[in-house]
């Protein structure tokens, strides 16, 4: 007999030999969501906190979910003791110090934080930043993991926006901020180095994409990488020189800045980024897609990418919902 111990929210229960984690939890009257009990509906998804779950329990899950040790409780016959939870563990905050503030364009601030205690993250994920009075907003990490303790963010000022106006006007070098563990599933996973990548961002949606691109290039990604960055007008674009430099340095990286309104400057396309991308690229079968920024753009581009052949599993997105309560 080999009984395994399962820890769930500080409760410890025993998993009998022939039982799945779901059986064990339900037996202990811990009622987690579940339905089909066959690995189909994915409603009983849990995350293993310390150890990798048995591969068979991750059948059918998206690669980023497998990578973060998510698994299906109904398929999981534990091979060892496990500590599990429902979803991301987002409660803990680390302390960070502001070490840099500079403007990327008239409305976008690059904020740099030094955060010695940040748990490991992946380029493209976001964190929640919390001000001393508790006001909390999500911002995407724009750097790769080379300098892991130095986090960079692109914060767009919204007129009347409580956090962004404050970050632009009042937050000063040397101040501290609380930073959550990184969250989200829109990030670069090494492996499939020859896969074609399409990244579309609007406004400060460039932040996570820039992180993903530098991580991919750093990891030796060999497939073509296409970035479309869109803005309403020329004044809204930023980092064009850096991106062009990167495109000269890496022949597999292609950069298309786009403006939907006003005059398009030299080397800038006129039109909406996702529409230009979809008409320029004939077929997205086998591609990996990253979409970040305005929720309407993300919603439309997801659909279009899927209709052009990209698989569900390969479409990663973060919609920058404004005014939504902090995502869990």
């Amino acid at each position, binding site marked *: 007999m080999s009984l395994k111990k399962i820890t769930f929210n500080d409760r410890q229960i025993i998993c009998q030999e022939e039982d799945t984690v779901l059986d064990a939890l339900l037996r202990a009257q811990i009622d987690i969501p579940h*339905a*089909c*009990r*066959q*690995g*189909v*509906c*994915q409603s009983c998804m849990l995350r293993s906190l310390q150890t990798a779950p048995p591969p068979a329990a991750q*059948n*059918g899950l998206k690669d980023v979910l497998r990578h973060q040790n998510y698994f299906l409780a109904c398929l999981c016959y534990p091979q060892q003791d496990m500590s599990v939870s429902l979803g991301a563990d987002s409660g803990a905050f680390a302390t960070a110090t502001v070490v840099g503030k500079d403007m990327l364009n008239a409305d976008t601030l690059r904020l740099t934080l030094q955060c010695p205690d940040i748990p490991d993250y992946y380029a493209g994920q976001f964190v929640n930043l919390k001000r001393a009075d508790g006001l909390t907003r999500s911002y995407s990490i724009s750097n790769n993991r080379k300098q892991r303790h130095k986090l960079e963010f692109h914060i767009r000022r919204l007129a009347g926006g409580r956090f962004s106006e404050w970050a632009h006007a009042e937050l000063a070098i040397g101040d501290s901020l609380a930073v959550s563990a990184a969250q989200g599933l829109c990030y670069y996973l090494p492996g499939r180095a020859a896969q074609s990548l399409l990244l579309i961002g609007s406004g400060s949606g460039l932040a996570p994409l820039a992180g993903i691109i530098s991580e991919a290039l750093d990891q030796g990604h060999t497939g073509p990488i296409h970035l479309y960055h869109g803005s309403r007008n020329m004044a809204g674009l930023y980092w064009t020189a850096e991106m062009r430099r990167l495109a000269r340095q890496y022949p597999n990286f292609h950069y298309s800045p786009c403006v939907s309104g006003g005059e398009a400057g030299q080397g800038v396309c006129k039109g909406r980024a996702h529409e230009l991308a979809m008409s320029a690229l004939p077929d997205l079968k086998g591609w990996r897609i990253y979409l970040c920024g305005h929720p309407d753009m993300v*919603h439309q581009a*997801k*659909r279009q990418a*899927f*209709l052009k*052949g990209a*698989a*569900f599993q390969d*479409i990663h997105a973060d919609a920058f919902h404004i005014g939504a309560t902090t995502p869990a």
Partner: protein
Amino acid sequence: MTETSATLYQQLGGEPAVNAAVDIFYRKVLADDRINRFFENVDMEKQAAKQKAFLTMAFGGPHHYTGEDMRKGHAHLVKAGLDDSHFDAVVENLAATLAELNVPQPLIDQVAAIAESTRNDVLGR
């Protein structure tokens, strides 16, 4: 769930078959101007899971939906004009998906029959 439908699910290849079919099926649905408006505002991630639920059910696989769930789940669509023509279009896309995956016609007919059995519930009659 009846004996024959459980067998059908196995004959079709179970969960891997559902996974193989879901992208093809949903792509057909979204590209079909007769019905894609009903899917305009649903979140794609959630929809992917729902499409799996739909296919598993149509394949005679394990599911926990009752007729009442089907009524409730589609009531807002019926209000928005969902009728027999849309139902037929979905069944047609389903059959075309299976044909594309080289599923033999007799099995396709059984899947279509399961879908057919939900017609009155889906259309709220």
